[in-house]
C-alpha cells in the first residue's frame, strides 16, 4: 500500500470546463478537439501547452484583463486574449509568434514595475504565478521608473524619499488565517471573482479605477475580519501572488509535498490536499478533483486543523478507580488491561448485556466497523449505537420504509441541474457550507428556492439570492406543512400520474390521496397551527410540482422532532408524487451532520442492524457474520443510546466504550445523561481531548486525528473517500489499532495490520460495498455505494430504474402535536442549530482560531419578545425549560419570528442541552432537540448549575504526574 500519494494532475487549465459539441482546431500546428465554448487557452492546455496568464484560473470565468495570454489566429485581426476567445472549427492558433512574445514581455514589464522585488524573502517564493510568468516570458529588464514626486509613484514602498507614500496601504492581518498585503496586489480580480462565483458571498470588490484600483473587503472602514468575508479561503486559493497568503505559509515556509485526503468536519466530505514539509502540516487546500467539493472549501476544513496540536490534546492513556479521583497516566498496556478486566468483570457480575459501545461518526468506516464488531463479536451483544441516533436515525427509518434504503438519492453535482430546490430544516450556508455555495451558484443561475424553516436563514435572502418562498413554520409542525403541500398537489391535480403508475403502487396512492385530500390538511386549515400563510404554501407547492427538476434538501430541522420519521416519509411522498426521483437534478437529499455519519450507519452501528442495514433477526445475515467471526450473534436488538442511559440509571447497564463522541454535551437532557454516566462502573472514553463525557470516565484512551491514520469516510452522497495518513499518530496508535488492542485483551483473535484489510472484510460481508477496495479507490479517487457487480462504477444516483424496495410506497402522514408545548410558564419555543465557524460540540473548532467568530453561544430573540422582557442586546438572560436552566447572552434579531428563540450548542459553558427534554422521535428515539418550551428572563450571569458544573469538570480533569 502506498503511504504517500502524489496528487493526480491538478494543473490549472486556465478557464473552466464546458460541455458542448466537439470542435477541432490546431494550436501551433497540433490538432486538438474540445467541446464547443471552450477557450483557446483551455484547448491549448489540453495538449500540454500553457499559454502565459495571470488573471485566468480554471475556478472562475475568464475575465480578459491581464492581456498576457494573447495569441494570433490565422485570418483574424489583432491579438485576442486566449482566455476569453472561444474555439471555432478549423481555427489555426499561434501561441508563440514574435508579435505576441513582445506584447507579453511588455505587459510583464509594466506589472513588475509596480511590484516589490523581494522574491527571496516573500512568502510566495516558489509558489508565485507572477514570478513564474516573468520567467516564462523571458523578462530581463524593467525600464520604467516612477516620475519623481509625481502621482504615479508605486503601490509597494511605504515611503518614497523622506515622504510617506500615499499609494501604500498597510497589510491587513485581521483574519486569523491569512493576510492581505495590498503592496503585492496586481489587481487581477481573481479573488473578487472567486468570492462571487465560487463562494457566493460577494464580500470583495475592486474599488477605484485605473492606477487607483484596489481590492477591498466590505466598506471603507472594514478590514477582512469585519467584512462579510466567511474565510472560506477561495480568494487565497485564487490569488496568484503573496497578496492573499496563508499565515501558516508565512510562518512555516512553502510546502514541498502533498497528500490527498478527506475533511473530517461536516457530511459534505470535501477532498483536500494536505501540504507538508516532512511531517509538519503547512496548509490544507481544497482538491479540485474532489467530486464532492470541486475545489471549494469552508473555514473549518481549510483552516481549522490546529486542534491536532493543541496543548489540551491528551497523548497518554489514563485510568482511575472512581471519577472523583484525579487521572493517572499509565502505559497503553496497563490502560488496556485495566479496561478489559473491568469490562469482563462487569459482564461476569451483571450479565453479558450489561456493557456496550458507542461508535463514532467522526472516525473512519474501518474504525466504526471494528467498534460494532467489538460489541457483537467480543461482548456478544448488540449494544451498539452511534450519534446518528441523535441526528439522522429518522432518515434511516423514513426512507427505508418508503424507498427501501436509507440514503440520499443524489450526488452533490446533481444540484447543477436543479430547477426548484426545497430546503427544509437545514441551514446549508452555515452547516454544509460548500454545498451551500454550490446551491447558491445554481440559484444565481436561475433556479428557484423554497425555504421551510422557522428562521430567516441566509438562503432566504443574502447577496444576489432570494428564496421564491419562505415558509416560517412554528417549530414542531413540519408534518402539517409537508402534508399540506401534498394536499395542494393532489387537490390541484399537479401529481405525475405516469410516474406513480410506473414506479409506485397506484392503489396505495389512491388510499393516500383519500387521506391527504381531506380538508383538514388544506393550507387554509393548517395555517392557524403552523403559522404559514396558506397562499404562500399553495404557491410553494405549485412551484415544486410544476417548476421542472425539483430537489428536496433537508437537515436536522426535519429529523430531530417527535415526528421526525413521519416528516421524512412526507418528504419522500412529495418526491414520489411529483416524479422527482431517479435522475439528475431531483431527489431527496438528507444533509448529514458529521463527516462519517452515513458511513457509521452503513457499518452496522445500530443495535438492530448488522452492516448494510440488515436486521439482526435475519438468520442468513447472522450466519454470514457468525462464520466469519466464529461467534454466535444475538438475534435480538440491543440498546439504543437513550435506552443505555435509562438502563444505567435503573442499574442494569454498567460499562460503556465511547469512541469519538461527547454524549454529555451533545445529547439531550444533560442531567439525565450525567446521571446515567455516573451510575456506570466503567466508562471508557476514546477521544482527542478530555471532553465533557470524560468527566465521568474511568479510562481515557487517547485518539488520533484524521491526519494520522488511513481509512475511508462516506459522505452524505454515499461517496466513499480515502482518508490518508499524512503524519504518524502523535498518541502512538491509530484508533482502529486501539480498538483492536482492547478486543485482543478481551480475548479476541484479531490481527489486522492495515485498514485496507478491514475494508476487504466489509466488502466480503456487505453487498453494497462488494467491489470496494483500496486499490480501486487509489485509482478512481472515490466511489458512491452501492458498488458491486450490478453497479461496478458505483451509483451517483439511486432508484434510477426502480426503487430499491421495488415499488415506492406512499405512507399516510397524520400530524400529531408533540407533548412539548408552550404554555403560561414556558411561553417561547427554543430551537437549536449550528453556525459556520464552530462544529457540533466544538471540541475541535473551539481549539482553533475559529473562536474569533463565535466565542460563546448566544440566544437569538425577536425584538418583540425581548422588549416585553426588558432584554437588550448583549444582556445576560436565563433560559429555563421543564428540564433545566442555563444562562447566556442575548442577541436581538428578526431572523427568528416572535415566539421562537434560537441558540447553538457549541460551548460546554452554556450547555444548551440542559434545557432540551427527553422527548424523542416515535420510531427511532431521535431526540426532539428542535422544540423545547422555554421562558427567558434577565439574569446576572451564569446559573448556580453552570458554576457547579464547571467546578465538577475542573475537579474531574485533574491529572497526576506519571509515576516513574
Amino acid at each position, binding site marked *: 500500500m502506498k503511504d504517500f500519494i502524489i496528487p493526480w494532475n491538478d494543473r490549472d487549465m486556465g478557464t473552466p470546463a464546458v460541455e458542448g459539441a466537439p470542435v477541432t482546431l490546431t494550436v501551433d500546428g497540433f490538432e486538438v478537439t474540445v467541446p464547443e465554448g471552450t477557450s483557446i487557452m483551455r484547448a491549448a492546455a489540453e495538449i500540454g501547452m500553457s499559454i502565459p496568464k495571470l488573471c485566468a484560473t480554471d475556478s472562475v470565468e475568464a475575465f480578459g484583463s491581464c492581456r498576457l495570454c494573447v495569441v494570433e489566429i490565422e485570418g483574424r485581426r489583432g491579438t485576442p486574449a486566449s482566455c476569453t476567445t472561444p474555439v471555432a472549427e478549423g481555427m489555426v492558433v499561434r501561441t508563440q509568434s514574435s508579435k505576441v512574445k513582445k506584447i507579453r514581455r511588455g505587459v510583464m514589464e509594466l506589472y513588475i514595475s509596480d511590484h516589490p522585488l523581494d522574491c527571496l524573502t516573500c512568502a510566495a517564493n516558489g509558489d508565485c504565478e507572477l514570478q513564474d510568468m516573468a520567467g516564462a516570458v523571458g523578462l530581463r529588464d524593467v525600464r520604467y521608473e516612477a516620475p519623481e514626486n509625481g502621482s504615479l509613484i508605486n503601490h509597494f514602498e511605504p515611503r518614497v524619499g523622506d515622504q510617506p507614500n500615499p499609494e501604500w496601504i498597510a497589510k491587513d492581518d485581521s483574519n486569523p488565517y491569512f493576510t492581505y498585503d495590498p503592496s503585492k496586489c496586481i489587481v487581477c480580480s481573481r479573488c473578487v471573482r472567486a468570492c462571487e462565483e465560487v463562494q457566493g458571498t460577494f464580500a470583495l470588490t475592486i474599488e477605484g479605477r485605473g492606477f487607483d484600483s484596489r481590492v477591498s473587503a466590505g466598506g471603507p472602514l472594514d478590514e477582512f475580519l469585519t467584512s462579510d468575508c466567511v474565510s472560506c479561503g477561495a480568494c487565497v486559493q485564487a490569488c496568484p501572488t503573496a497578496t492573499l497568503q496563508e499565515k501558516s505559509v508565512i510562518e512555516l515556509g512553502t510546502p514541498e509535498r502533498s497528500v490527498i485526503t478527506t475533511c473530517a468536519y461536516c457530511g459534505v466530505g470535501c477532498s483536500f490536499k494536505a501540504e507538508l514539509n516532512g511531517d509538519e502540516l503547512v496548509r490544507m487546500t481544497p482538491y479540485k478533483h474532489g467530486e464532492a467539493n470541486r475545489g471549494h472549501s469552508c473555514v473549518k476544513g481549510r483552516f481549522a486543523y490546529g486542534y491536532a496540536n493543541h496543548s489540551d490534546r491528551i497523548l497518554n492513556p489514563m485510568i482511575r478507580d472512581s471519577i472523583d479521583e484525579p487521572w493517572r497516566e499509565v502505559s497503553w498496556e496497563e490502560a488496556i488491561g485495566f479496561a478489559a478486566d473491568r469490562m469482563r468483570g462487569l459482564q461476569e457480575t451483571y450479565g453479558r*448485556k450489561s456493557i456496550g459501545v458507542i461508535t463514532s461518526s467522526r472516525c473512519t468506516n474501518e474504525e466504526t466497523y471494528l467498534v460494532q464488531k467489538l460489541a457483537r463479536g467480543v461482548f456478544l451483544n*448488540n449494544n451498539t449505537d452511534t450519534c446518528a441516533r441523535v441526528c439522522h436515525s429518522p432518515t434511516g427509518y423514513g426512507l427505508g420504509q418508503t424507498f427501501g434504503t436509507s440514503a440520499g438519492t443524489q450526488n452533490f453535482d446533481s444540484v447543477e441541474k436543479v430547477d426548484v430546490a426545497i430546503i427544509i430544516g437545514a441551514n446549508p450556508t452555515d452547516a454544509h457550507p460548500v454545498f451551500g455555495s454550490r446551491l447558491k451558484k445554481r440559484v444565481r443561475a436561475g433556479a428557484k428556492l423554497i425555504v421551510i424553516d422557522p428562521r430567516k436563514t441566509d438562503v432566504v435572502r443574502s447577496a444576489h439570492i432570494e428564496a421564491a418562498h419562505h415558509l416560517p413554520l412554528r417549530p414542531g409542525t413540519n408534518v402539517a406543512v409537508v402534508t399540506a403541500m401534498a394536499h395542494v398537489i393532489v387537490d390541484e391535480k399537479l401529481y405525475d400520474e405516469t410516474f406513480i403508475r410506473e414506479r409506485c403502487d397506484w392503489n396505495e396512492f389512491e*388510499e393516500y390521496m383519500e*387521506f391527504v385530500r381531506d380538508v383538514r390538511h388544506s393550507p387554509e386549515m393548517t395555517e392557524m397551527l403552523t403559522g404559514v400563510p396558506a397562499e404562500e404554501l399553495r404557491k410553494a407547492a405549485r412551484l415544486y410540482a410544476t417548476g421542472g427538476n425539483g430537489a428536496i434538501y433537508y437537515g436536522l430541522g426535519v429529523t430531530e422532532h*417527535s415526528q421526525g*420519521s*413521519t416528516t421524512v416519509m412526507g418528504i419522500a411522498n412529495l418526491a414520489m408524487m411529483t416524479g422527482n426521483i431517479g435522475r439528475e437534478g431531483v431527489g431527496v437529499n438528507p444533509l448529514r451532520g458529521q463527516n462519517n455519519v452515513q458511513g457509521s450507519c452503513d457499518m452496522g452501528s445500530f*443495535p*438492530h442492524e448488522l452492516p448494510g442495514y440488515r*436486521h439482526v*433477526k435475519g438468520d442468513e445475515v447472522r450466519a454470514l457474520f457468525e462464520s466469519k467471526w466464529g461467534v454466535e450473534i444475538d438475534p*435480538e*436488538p*440491543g*440498546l*439504543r443510546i437513550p*435506552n443505555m442511559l*435509562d*438502563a444505567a*440509571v*435503573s442499574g*442494569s447497564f454498567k460499562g460503556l466504550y465511547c469512541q469519538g463522541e461527547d454524549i454529555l454535551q451533545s445529547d439531550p437532557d444533560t442531567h439525565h445523561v450525567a446521571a446515567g454516566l455516573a451510575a456506570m462502573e466503567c466508562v471508557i472514553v476514546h477521544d482527542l481531548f478530555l471532553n465533557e463525557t470524560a468527566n465521568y470516565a474511568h479510562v481515557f484512551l487517547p485518539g488520533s486525528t484524521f491526519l494520522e491514520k488511513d481509512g475511508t469516510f462516506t459522505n452524505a452522497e454515499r461517496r466513499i473517500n480515502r482518508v490518508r495518513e499524512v503524519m504518524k499518530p502523535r498518541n502512538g496508535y491509530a484508533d482502529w489499532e486501539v480498538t483492536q488492542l482492547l478486543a485482543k485483551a478481551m480475548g479476541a483473535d484479531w490481527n489486522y495490520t492495515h485498514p485496507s484489510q478491514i475494508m476487504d472484510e466489509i466488502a466480503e460481508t456487505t453487498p453494497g460495498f462488494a467491489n470496494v477496495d483500496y486499490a480501486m479507490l487509489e485509482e478512481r479517487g472515490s466511489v458512491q455505494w452501492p458498488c458491486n457487480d450490478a453497479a461496478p462504477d458505483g451509483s451517483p444516483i439511486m432508484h434510477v430504474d426502480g426503487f430499491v424496495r421495488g415499488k415506492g410506497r406512499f*405512507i*399516510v402522514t*397524520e400530524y*400529531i402535536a408533540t*407533548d412539548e408545548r408552550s404554555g403560561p410558564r414556558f411561553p417561547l419555543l427554543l430551537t437549536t442549530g449550528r453556525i459556520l465557524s464552530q462544529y457540533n460540540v466544538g471540541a475541535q473548532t473551539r481549539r482553533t482560531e475559529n473562536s474569533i467568530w463565535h466565542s460563546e453561544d448566544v440566544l437569538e430573540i425577536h425584538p418583540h419578545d425581548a422588549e416585553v422582557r426588558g432584554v437588550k442586546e448583549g444582556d445576560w438572560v436565563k433560559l429555563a425549560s421543564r428540564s433545566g436552566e442555563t444562562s447566556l447572552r442575548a442577541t436581538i434579531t428578526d431572523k427568528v419570528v416572535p415566539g421562537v428563540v434560537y441558540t447553538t450548542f457549541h460551548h460546554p459553558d452554556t450547555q444548551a442541552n440542559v434545557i432540551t427534554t*427527553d422527548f*424523542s422521535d*416515535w*420510531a*427511532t*428515539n431521535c431526540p426532539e432537540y428542535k422544540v423545547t418550551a422555554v421562558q427567558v428572563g434577565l439574569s446576572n450571569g451564569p446559573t448556580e448549575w453552570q458554576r457547579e458544573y464547571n467546578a465538577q469538570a475542573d475537579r474531574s480533569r485533574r491529572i497526576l504526574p506519571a509515576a516513574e
Partner: protein
Amino acid sequence: MSHEKLTRMANQIASFFATQPGQDQAERVAAHLNDFWGPEMRAELKAHAAEDDSDLAPLVRDAIPLI
C-alpha cells in the same frame, strides 16, 4: 426504566400506526416493538401491562400478546 417512559414511547408508536389504513395496526405496533426494542424493554412493558394497562393506548394493549 421508568414505566412512564416506556408507556410514553409505546403509546407514541401506537399513535402513528393508529393513523395508518388497514386492519393490522396492532400487528404493526408489535412488529415495530419487536424490531427496535431490546427483549428487556419488551419484557418490562409486558410486565407493566400485566399489572396495570390503563395508561396504555388501546393499540398497545392489542399488541402486547404479539410481542
